[in-house]
């Protein structure tokens, strides 16, 4: 059995790549274990580890001359070597017809859900789509930017123009609601922007909470807050950011109430228009 490896450091995690080759003339089952001081984070799909992996390592079946590449991460500093061959055993080829490949065995034993998750692509929206939030949600994004994420930037006239266009989009969305059959996403509009604003406000609230806890804090409470923020550097600029939050929140509140008043005044004769159309 021939094992080569390579290790990279990424933040507080070690990324291990290895190649293993069965140089025997018979099929072998090999157990490769991590020597890093933390549980193995195996390759996953849909939240399910690939077949053969567990916290300590991986078990593979290799045909004669077969070469396999694998990799994993662990939250631990690199060690030398990061992996070792813990066990090699001959595969009993007579029992093989019963037990087959570990993958096939797993798929049969596992639920149909596990089969679907292993074989089909991940459905989840990328992390960037949820963390950024601002780009994918129309009308709300400007208010959000004003509300929290860009406390130092001023709203330019250009942005206001964009916001006007967004308002039109929102109206279209509402109009399409009547026929969800044609537009799968139409009914999401009215509530989704609010969720996004809510999320942004939660972030601002967390910042204000922190500032409140530091206001007139005794030594113990302050130490705790600093420890929670991963050091005093993380808190630098907190006072300016919270002050900017206060300004933006006041602006946002004024604009929101003005818009609410205007929204309450409108009376679009959509039904009448539909009857005429």
């Amino acid at each position: 059995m021939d094992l080569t490896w390579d290790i990279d450091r990424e933040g507080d995690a070690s990324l291990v790549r290895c190649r293993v080759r069965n140089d025997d003339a018979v099929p072998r089952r090999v157990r490769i274990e991590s020597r890093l001081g933390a549980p193995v984070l195996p390759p996953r799909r849909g939240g399910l580890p690939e077949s053969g992996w567990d916290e300590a390592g991986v078990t593979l079946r290799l045909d004669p001359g077969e070469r396999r590449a694998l990799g994993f991460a662990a939250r631990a500093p690199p060690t030398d070597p990061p992996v070792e061959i813990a066990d090699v055993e001959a595969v009993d080829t007579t029992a093989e017809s019963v037990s087959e490949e570990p993958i096939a065995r797993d798929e049969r034993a596992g639920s149909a859900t596990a089969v679907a998750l292993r074989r089909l692509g991940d459905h989840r929206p990328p992390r960037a789509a949820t963390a950024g939030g601002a780009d994918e949600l129309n009308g709300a994004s400007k208010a959000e930017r004003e509300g929290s994420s860009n406390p130092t930037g001023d709203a330019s006239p250009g942005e206001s123009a964009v916001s006007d266009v967004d308002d039109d989009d929102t109206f279209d969305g509402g109009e399409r609601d009547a026929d969800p059959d044609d537009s799968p996403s139409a009914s999401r509009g009215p509530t989704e922007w609010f969720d996004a604003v809510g999320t942004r406000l939660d972030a601002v609230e967390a910042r204000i909470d922190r500032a409140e806890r530091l206001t007139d804090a005794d030594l113990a409470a302050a130490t705790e807050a600093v420890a929670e923020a991963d050091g005093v550097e993380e808190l630098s600029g907190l006072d300016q950011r919270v002050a900017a939050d206060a300004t933006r929140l006041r602006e946002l509140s004024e604009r929101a109430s003005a818009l609410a008043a205007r929204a309450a005044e409108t009376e679009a004769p959509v039904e009448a228009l539909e009857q005429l159309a």
Partner: protein
Amino acid sequence: MILAVAGGKGGVGKTTLAYNVAAALDAVVVDADLGMADLPGGRGPDLHDVLAGEADPIETLRAGPVDVVPCGRTLAGARAADLRRLESAVASIERERGTVVLDCPAGRRADAGVPLAVADACLLVVSPRAFALADAIRTRALARELDAGLVGCAVNRVTEEPPTDAIADALGAPAAVVPADPRVGRSVAEERPVVDAAPDSAAAEAVRELARRVPR
């Protein structure tokens, strides 16, 4: 009985038919479209919360002309949803309420596959256009691999005589024709299933015909 309403392509009327067939079956309809929910929402916990492990499936049931398990509308909720929880969630709704209809998303990713894996049978929705049929055939293959027997297919929003026999041959299941009817199109938004709103219409008869094919 758990019935998945699938179709591969988006916009062919999966949600509308899931809702109306659920009405004819007196079933609960679950909005399993994690990324683009379509069925009426609500204020309480939804399927995103259940799949994130934060709510009991039974408390998400929302009473109406057709009882609905709504789905959240946020991308963060779709991201946090763990599809491994779908099977037990749907099973507990089935124990409580008998028949469950799953409104599946479009596509061939895990969110479309897992509801098929969870379901006992599936109903395919196709539009009378050829390009939608290709997606339906791919979904048919996926359903077969995941052991969701096909009980029928619905050729939806038909305005002129479609090649029903060719579609039934391609998919390997009897095809029911659902004529284009604005009352069907509005049924979900207004929460008025066509079997109640217009029981004598051709569309209502087609929906009842599809429901009769579902073994119970």
